[in-house]
């Protein structure tokens, strides 16, 4: 234990769901000022809920059942509403796991940033805006001034995440709870963002509770770590000790599950490409609103890529470089403004209905933001089973069986009856994956499919991908920032920057001998756990 008085002290916390089940059971840990504590653990183990409980912002239906959460010695769970409001934002800041849905779609970024600032500090609007711009710049948003007037939907996933982070750190809270803050960020940006956080701890003595799956990050930045499994505390101690000398088997499996370079993949048979982009370009009509002239934004500027059957191509690249946009355009969800897509050798520009339909059904997408891609009014089983509608000749029972099978494979057996809102971030992501692969499509664009998954589950999912590929030979474009994950599934890597491909090649070539400076920088910035994995 640290010598100083802990800033946050969670004692024997239990969280119950209305039905009586506990999702968090008897966990205790401390966070001292100026300290970075990592909270790791399996997806769905209750990390997010424990963090939310510290701000008393539990979703409806989840109640603290026992225990205390002391902030500066005061129990958060019994404080008055008034006191809590004073605490939130200024004292305890929280970066939410799902940045996509955590920004108000109807408010400009500027308004959302300034709002909290002006609430806790006496600042003029100009001063507040200055501070906001400054912070945006620090989290690597280019053109921060222009960004103030834009709405959330006009940003890429990573950009939104950085805006979220900026909005929280702007307030310089005493305790920063960061729930998977960098899942959508490329390694370079990730490093920058974490540096800002570390800066804060140094200059302001801010304590950070960092929830993450990225053990590399943990090993590089955190002092202590807490490991959860299924709502129970497994192990806690200094990072050094836990990572290098894990006491518990669960911790060990977690570390062992770190993705490894997968050597010995069978070479992909030379074949005609399954899907091919030729000079694909995508332009967004306007980032301006309808009262000011719209400025078209070219997000993808002529990208060519061919994917053969059974091949897995990884796209890496900076946040906002156009990966998602390209992925969506590739499977025809987004209209392209130039170039063409060929599927099974036929151009989809002006294809007939049957071809369109084949294309549509054969190409699936795992959305980068799983939460908003799940219909809030449908149960998980129904969401996952929906693509089976297009599988003729399946009986109801067969369908249910398939759904059960795939849910089991992604580790969600028994969750079929839940609604999306009652899942953890990682669980939602797995739902999205299950939905995309249930019909064994010929081609999948997986947009950050494992970003919210802990190492064990991530491994499970990556294994699933590989298995499916081996069994059905589906091709896949795998968009990820996680070079570890990339190295374990991909045959080929494509590096994007600014809407263009800057480098592409074999996994091993790129990882071992990057040529483009940007690629080099990306690789260099990747945090490693510093142990022989």
């Amino acid at each position, binding site marked *: 234990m640290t010598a100083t008085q802990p800033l946050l002290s969670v004692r024997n916390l239990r969280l119950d769901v*209305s039905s009586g089940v506990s999702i968090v059971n008897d966990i205790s840990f401390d966070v001292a000022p100026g300290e970075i504590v990592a909270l790791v653990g399996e997806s769905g183990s209750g990390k997010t809920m424990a963090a939310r409980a510290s701000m008393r912002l539990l979703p*409806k*239906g989840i109640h603290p059942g026992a225990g205390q959460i002391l902030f500066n010695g005061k129990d958060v769970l019994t404080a008055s509403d008034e006191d809590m409001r004073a605490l939130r934002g200024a004292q305890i800041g929280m970066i939410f796991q799902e940045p996509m849905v955590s920004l108000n779609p109807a408010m400009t970024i500027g308004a959302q940033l300034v709002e909290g600032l002006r609430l806790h500090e006496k600042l003029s609007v100009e001063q507040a805006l200055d501070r906001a711009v400054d912070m945006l710049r620090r989290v690597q948003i280019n053109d921060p001034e222009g960004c103030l007037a834009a709405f959330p939907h006009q940003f890429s996933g990573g950009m939104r995440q950085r805006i979220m982070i900026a909005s929280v750190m702007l307030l310089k809270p005493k305790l920063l709870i960061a729930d998977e803050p960098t899942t959508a960020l490329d390694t370079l940006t990730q490093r920058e963002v974490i540096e800002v956080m570390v800066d804060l701890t140094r200059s302001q003595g801010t304590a950070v509770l960092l929830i993450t799956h990225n053990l590399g990050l943990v090993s590089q930045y955190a002092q202590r770590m807490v490991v959860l499994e299924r709502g129970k505390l497994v192990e806690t101690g200094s990072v050094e000790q836990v990572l290098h000398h894990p006491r518990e088997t669960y911790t060990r499996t977690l570390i062992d599950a770190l993705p490894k370079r997968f050597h010995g993949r069978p070479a992909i048979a030379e074949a005609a490409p399954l899907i091919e982009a030729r000079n694909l370009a995508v332009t967004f009509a306007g980032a301006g609103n309808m009262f000011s002239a719209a400025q078209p934004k070219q997000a993808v500027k002529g990208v060519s890529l061919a994917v053969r059957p059974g091949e897995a191509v990884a796209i890496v690249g900076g946040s906002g470089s156009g990966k998602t946009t390209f992925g969506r355009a590739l*499977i025809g*969800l987004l209209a392209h403004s130039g170039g063409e897509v060929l599927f099974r050798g036929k151009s989809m520009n002006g294809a007939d209905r049957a071809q369109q*339909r084949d294309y*549509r*059904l054969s190409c*699936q*997408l795992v*959305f980068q*933001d799983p939460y*908003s*891609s*799940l*219909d*809030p*009014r*449908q*149960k998980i089983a129904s969401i996952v089973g*929906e*693509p089976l*509608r*297009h599988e003729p000749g399946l009986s109801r029972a067969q369908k249910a069986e398939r759904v059960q099978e795939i849910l089991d494979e992604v580790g969600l057996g028994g969750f079929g009856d839940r*609604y999306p*809102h009652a899942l953890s971030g990682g669980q939602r992501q797995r739902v*999205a994956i299950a*939905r995309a692969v249930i019909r064994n499509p010929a081609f999948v664009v997986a947009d950050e499919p494992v970003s919210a998954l802990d190492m064990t589950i991530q491994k499970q999912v990556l294994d699933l991908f590989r298995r499916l590929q081996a069994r059905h030979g589906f091709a896949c474009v795998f968009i990820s920032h996680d070079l570890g994950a990339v190295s374990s599934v991909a045959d080929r890597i494509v590096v994007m920057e600014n809407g263009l491909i800057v480098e592409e090649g074999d996994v091993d070539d790129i990882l071992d001998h990057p040529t483009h400076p940007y690629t080099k920088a990306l690789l260099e910035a990747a945090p490693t756990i510093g142990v022989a994995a």
Partner: protein
Amino acid sequence: MKRPAPNLLIGGTLVTVVLAMAATALFWTPYDPMALNLRARTLPPSELYWLGTDEFGRDVVSRLLLGASQSLTVAIFTVLLAVAVGTILGLISGYVRGITDRILMVVSDAVLAFPGTLLALGLMVIMGPNTMGIILALGIAYTPSVLRIVRGSVLSAREREYVEASRAIGNSEFYTMIRHVLPNCVAPVVVLATSMFGWVVLAESGLSFLGLGVPPPAPTWGNMLSAARPYLERAPWLGLAPGLCIAFTLLGINLLGDALRDRLDPRMER
């Protein structure tokens, strides 16, 4: 089991009472609701006549009971008609957009701008004055409102990512519309439908003035209410009785509507 939500409890009770009233009238009323008693006109409530008598000496209780079934029939069918047609067209209009949307908007604006009085008179010519006529006239008059409300919600809902996800799976536009857009637009429709219920009951009273109402002497709450107008001071119970019936029915239906909406909303913790 958990305690049912208060809105379900109160709403359910009120609606049950009203339905019971309507059902009772089929078998029994204290007096013949149509029988005049010219010696007993506008009597205040008494033991003999619980809620008094109207300007023709007819028993108010009996007429209320019978009126319940008449009013409910008209209201239910009108709302069903308007909601069904309005929702379908609104979905199409908001989802498909383009020329279809424009044409539907042109027609709905035209109907909206059309006064109910004229529409009713016109339909009277076609249908003759009967219950079908009322339902059709009011149904047509209210459909565009539903259409607009649904369209508005659809415009928002169709931009959601789960709608895109449905398309990505390969679902047809039609299926996506029904399965993913529609359920996420129900809240305003439920509100509108339950509110409309009241409007219809009241509008029927206006129509009976034109002869498009339920033909006399059969009572509806609406025409009882409008007939009671000159007696507001002299015999207030004449207006109060149907007025309260309408109010309580509406309250019941609205609360029930809320309960229903909650039920449809998975995020609502019960």
